[in-house]
Each structure stands twice: as C-alpha cells, then as structure tokens.
C-alpha cells in the first residue's frame, strides 16, 4: 500500500538521530573555521548516546525498510553537520571497492584498514576512464611502480591505505585500467595536501602524489593482470562502488537543505512571518510563496531518494532512479540554500549563523559521485535506449 507514514519505531530511530545531530552541530562552526583540524572519531558526548545499531532492536515487518531508513538516517545526520559525527565508523569508500573487487585473501589481508578510494586526477573529472596514472611491473623485484597524481580523495588523510586506479597499458584505454591497493607506508607515496574547499572544510579530502611508488605485485586488486574486454574487471568493480552511493549522497545533501529550511522558517516566524498553507497565490507574500516553493522542492527531491531506496529494499533494480534522485537533489539543494539566504537577507550571509555554511557545504552534492550532467546522460541513455556511443 502506498504510504508515507512513519511507524513509532521509525520515529524512535530518527528521533535519536536528530538528538545526536543536534549535539554534533555544536561543533560544526569550529571545524569549519579551523579546517586544518579533523573532528574526533568519537565526540565526548558519545557516552550519552547508544550505538546506532541498538536503535534497530525489535523492528517489525510493518516498519519502514532498511534502505529507506538508511537514507533518512543519512539526511538526519547531515542535518546536524556534514562532517561531524558522534562516532565515526571505520572504513572508507576503498573498503567497499575491496569487497567488490578484491580476492578473498586480499579482503582478509586489508579489510581491517581504513581504505580511501583514489580515482580523480587533475586532468580528469567526471570521466573516470581518463586515468593517466601508470603502473609498470618490475619483474625483477616483482613490484608495481606507480607514477601519477590523485585529487579529491575522501578520507585521504586519515586512511591507512588507498585503492588507487592506474593503467597498465595506456593503449588499451579503459580496459587497461586496474585497481591497486597502496598502504600509506609505501615508498614514493606522498599525501600532498588537504584540499582547501568552498565548503565541507572539516571533511578529509586529500591530494596524493605517487613518485616511483613501489608496491608488491600481489597488491593488484583481483589479481588478474590480463587486459580484459572493454568495461569489465577492475573497471566494473570501481563503477559498482561508484553507483551504490548516489542516493546516499543525495540524501546527505538534502539533510543539509532541510537544516537550512528549518532554520529559515524559525527566523521568519521570529520576525512574525508565519507560513499559511491554505491560501492560494493571491493570499501569499513574496516570502511565504517562495518558502513554500523551496519546501516543495525539498520534499519532491527527498521522495525521489526514498523511492530509489525503496526499490532496492524490494530487490528491484534502481539504476535509473539512483540517477534521477542524484540529479534532482543536486539541483534542488543549490536552489534551496541559495533561496534561504535570499529570504533572510544579509543575516543569512553572516558567519554568526550556520546558514551560510550549509550554502557552502551543500554545493558539493551536484559535483561528486557524478555531476548532474553525468546523471542526466545516464537518465537520457536509459529512456532513449541509447548506448555510450549514441549519446555522448
């Protein structure tokens, strides 16, 4: 049955997330203004909060599915802050890649490490196949020699190792691309710097340099040194992790947008401007009408996220819907945060409040994990039944 009602258990979980988020928010400005610092893996307040998993005790078949819940939880956490968490889980994007593409031995060997994922290079943005980083086998020492640069590496500073993407045969194009695991201790592996960004400044985003970096031959993820056919092997492995995250990224952005809407509503009400949803256009002020438009935009975008997650809860494919919600949320959060500042005026642009930070933080949503343009390409190819060559 079509339903958008939260069960008591749903509300209990999300309520707890909200309390945690409020505690995290208290640290938000500090780590934004001091971007060289990292939020702790666990906040001092953590002792007052039960571990997330414990909230899920006694959930029944009538409660909302876990996929949908995880999206609302992701949004509920970023509502507090993008970077600060009560407890930071171990592991990074790289661990997902290891699980997706590593051999059982490799998984056993490395999964205890926090692994970052290094795809993007200074010369390639949303096109992961344009990798110029090279891996050459030194058959004498049985080592791979890596050379190249990687940027925008999430959790890149704190990670103990990284899954890096390099080509063993440029002429083979996409097919020559392999994933390698590099531990931080590897010679010639330099963490160049922490990126200085518009927003999510507390976020650990690094730039790497690999200079004749040597790693054991066995660090080739999946172990297959052959040149596979177009788009398989390591490539698919990475694309897989790349695809899984779109709805989550959309939800995280929308949590920030909701924080902006909630705070804006509070400020408007404090100024005596209440939102009356019953009146039509002629009954609205410029501010209330605009606020409702932004609110509708938020709701519409969030529902596309929940739909994509609901499909996966149903065991159905959601590749199209993942791109739909990522594209929708990416554009929505830009308009919502820009609009909230517009509604509140100069006060919205003051760093005495978090709204301007949310405006900066949320802008990443339409950029990482595939820009809105990339998502539209995926959507268009799907509905037009076109391949990569027919629609570029």
């Amino acid at each position, binding site marked *: 049955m079509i339903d958008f009602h939260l069960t008591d258990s749903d509300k209990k979980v999300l309520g707890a997330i909200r309390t945690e988020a409020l505690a995290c928010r208290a640290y938000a400005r500090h780590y934004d203004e001091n971007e060289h610092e990292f939020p702790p893996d666990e906040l001092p307040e953590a002792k007052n909060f039960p571990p997330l998993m414990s909230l899920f005790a006694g959930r029944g078949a009538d409660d909302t599915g876990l996929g949908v819940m995880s999206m609302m939880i992701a949004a509920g956490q970023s509502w507090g802050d993008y970077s600060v968490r009560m407890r930071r889980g171990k592991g990074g994007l790289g661990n997902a890649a290891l699980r997706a593409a590593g051999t059982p031995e490799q998984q056993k060997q490395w999964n205890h490490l926090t692994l970052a994922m290094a795809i993007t290079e200074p010369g390639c943005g949303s096109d992961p196949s344009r990798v110029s980083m090279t891996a050459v086998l030194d058959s004498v020492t049985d080592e791979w020699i890596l050379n190249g640069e990687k940027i925008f590496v999430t959790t890149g500073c704190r990670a103990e190792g990284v899954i890096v993407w390099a080509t063993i045969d440029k002429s083979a194009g996409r097919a020559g691309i392999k994933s390698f695991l590099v531990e931080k201790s590897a010679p010639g592996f330099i963490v160049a710097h922490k990126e200085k960004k518009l927003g999510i400044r507390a976020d650990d985003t690094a730039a790497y340099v690999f200079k004749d970096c040597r790693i054991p031959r066995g660090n080739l993820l999946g172990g297959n040194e052959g040149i596979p056919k177009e788009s398989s092997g390591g490539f698919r492995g990475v694309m897989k992790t790349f695809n899984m995250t779109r709805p989550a990224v959309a939800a995280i952005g929308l949590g920030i947008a909701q924080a902006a809407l909630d705070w804006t509503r509070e400020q408007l009400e404090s100024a005596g401007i209440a939102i009356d949803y019953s009146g039509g256009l002629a009954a609205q002020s410029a501010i209330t009408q605009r606020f409702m438009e932004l609110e509708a935009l938020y709701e519409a975008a969030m529902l596309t996220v929940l739909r994509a997650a609901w499909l996966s809860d149903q065991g159905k494919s959601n590749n199209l819907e993942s791109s739909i919600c990522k594209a929708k949320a990416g554009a929505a959060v830009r308009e919502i945060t820009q609009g909230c500042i517009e509604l509140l005026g100069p006060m919205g642009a003051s760093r005495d409040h978090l709204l301007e930070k949310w405006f900066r933080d949320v802008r990443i949503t339409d950029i990482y994990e595939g820009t809105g343009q990339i998502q539209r390409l995926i*959507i*268009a190819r799907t*509905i037009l039944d076109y391949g990569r060559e027919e629609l570029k």
Partner: protein
Amino acid sequence: MISFGPTEEQEVARDAMRDFAASAIRPIARRCDEESQVPAEFLEQAWQLGLVSTQIPEAFGGGGETRSPITNALVLEELAFGDAGLALAAISPALFAMPIVEFGTEAQQREFLPLFCGDTFHAASLALVEPGPCFDPTGLRTTAERKGDSYVLSGVKCFVPLADRASHFLVLARNGGDGADAVQAFIVPRDAAGLAIASPEKNLGLRALPTGTLTLERVEVPASARLGGDAGCEARRIVNLSRAAQAAVLVGISRAVMEYAIPYAKDREAFDEAIAKKQAIAFTLADMCIEVDAMRWLMWQAASKLERGLDATREAQLARIYCARQAMKIADDGVQVLGGHGFIREHPVELWYRNVRMLSVLDGAALV
C-alpha cells in the same frame, strides 16, 4: 511505513484506466478539443467504468468501496494521460456526489446518491471558481445568508463543469467568518429561482470539458440544502482533495508529453542525426523524466495523508504548487522539442500546452 507500492486492486484499476485512456480517450481528444464538446456517448462509455458509483455506499445502490484518494490519484493520472478535458468531464459528477458521500446528512445521501448509481451518466457539478483577477479558493465572495429556515445565496460562479446539463450544483459560499473554514457548500437545483446559467464559456484549454457561468441572485434554498446540515462540511478538506486531484491530472498530462516527445526526438533528424542525440534535447527529456517522477511522489504524499483522514493542507498545497510549475515547464519544453510541429495542431503537444496552462490556474476547482 514508507512504501511506494500500490495494492493489487489499485494496479488493476490503474491498468484498466490506462487501457481506457488509450482506446477510448486519446483517439477522440483532438476532435473534442476542436469542436469544444464532449460526446454524450463518451460520457456513457466512461460511466460504465463506475468511477463514481463504486465509491457510493451500497445502501444507496453504489459499489460500497471506501473512497480512496490514492486510488483516485492513480486513476486520474491515467485518464488525464488520455486527455485532461475528457477525464474531468467523465468524473465531474463526483464533484457533486463525493462531498455528499463524505459530508452529507443521511437525508441528503438518501435523496441524491441514488442518482449516481444508475446505468446512465448523471450530470451534477460543483461551483467554486469566481470571476475576476486572482481568484483564491480561500477568498470566496459568494455569500450564503441564513434567513429563517433557509439560506440566501448571492454571487457569480464560473468554470462550472457541465453547467449545461447538471441537474444540481454544489455551490461553495462564504457562510460567515473568514478563511477556508468559513466556507460552506449548498445544494442548488438547476431550476432554482434566481439562478441563471450561461454556457458554454470559451476557454484556452480543456475545451472538451464544457463549462458555464452561474449567476445567483438571492437564490433561496432550504436550510436542509446546506451540505452536512448543521454540522456543515470541512471546506478545507474539499479544497485539499481538489488540489491533490489537480496535481494528479497534471502528472498525467506531463507524462503524456514525455512519452510523446521521446520517440519523436529519436525519430526526428536534424544535421544528419536524431535530435535526441543532441545533449540539449536529451537533457530536456531527462529532466522531464526526473520531474514526472518527483511530481508523482509529491502528489501521492498528499493523497496518502488525505487517505488517512489527516489534515493535508500543507502536503496538498506543496503538491499543487510544485506540479503546476513543473507541468507548465514540461509542456513548454515539449513544444520546443517538437519545434514547428509543436506549434501546429497535427500533434497533441500544443493541446497539452493549453490544457496545462488552463488547469494549473484552476486552484481548488478540479475536485474529485
């Protein structure tokens, strides 16, 4: 529990409507628009779907199914996919019957509901919209004054569906006080003294749906003609239901535009390749796909809240605002994708462009 899954019954109903839209509505839509009329035989044909009667209690000869705003949303999207004007014509008796099911006194239900349980289409309608700039459903000017054992109605109503043939009208009027809650509904027979009916009106869109203007000059009706009697009706809920329904129809038209534009763009060539292979066109189509989904879930959210009997004022308003804006953009983009062919009446897109602009300004007037 958050779920996007219709029940099996709802899927059956939706598929039946989809077939009806394809076989009975789409083929006659253009002719009905050009001739500005709905064929009587179509109304009879649609009547057999039981759109109205099934939701009337068995005690009055109906199907006895409990009314479901969600099912209505699914049904409306499909009918509107065929043609919004014909869809609204077919369900217009519900404009009168459903509020009586929901709010009517036992006497009112006994007197009027059987009219809609027969084998043939029975026309009745709702009078909400008023002439003049910036109509707002919460700012009605038509008044109903209590006078002894009766009410005296004065005002002008326009865009009244099937005014040319309706036996009764449910007239919404200000009944003291301000805002949505001050509004009440009154049952007015076609032959009421002081009621003048001018029909048809000439409209930009939805031409297949004949509408008319009612002028009420001190029309006197018995106190028992007030919907719900002394208890009255919850006008706010009527407006909310209407906004949700309006959103559903807009989703249907938008989907029609998208499903027409996609094959057209693949088929149509310019500069030696299908225009769908141009990013500018392909991304426009992608945006249609994104928004038709987004519109539908927002509209479902409002319907679901209404189905639970909760106050859906916020959800219905957001769905209306969002769907009105996006549907206009989609129809507009649809015309652009077709270029010159979007401007001529050999293709349906120009018709959808007019229908969306017309429907999306009828705030609160598409109640079902």
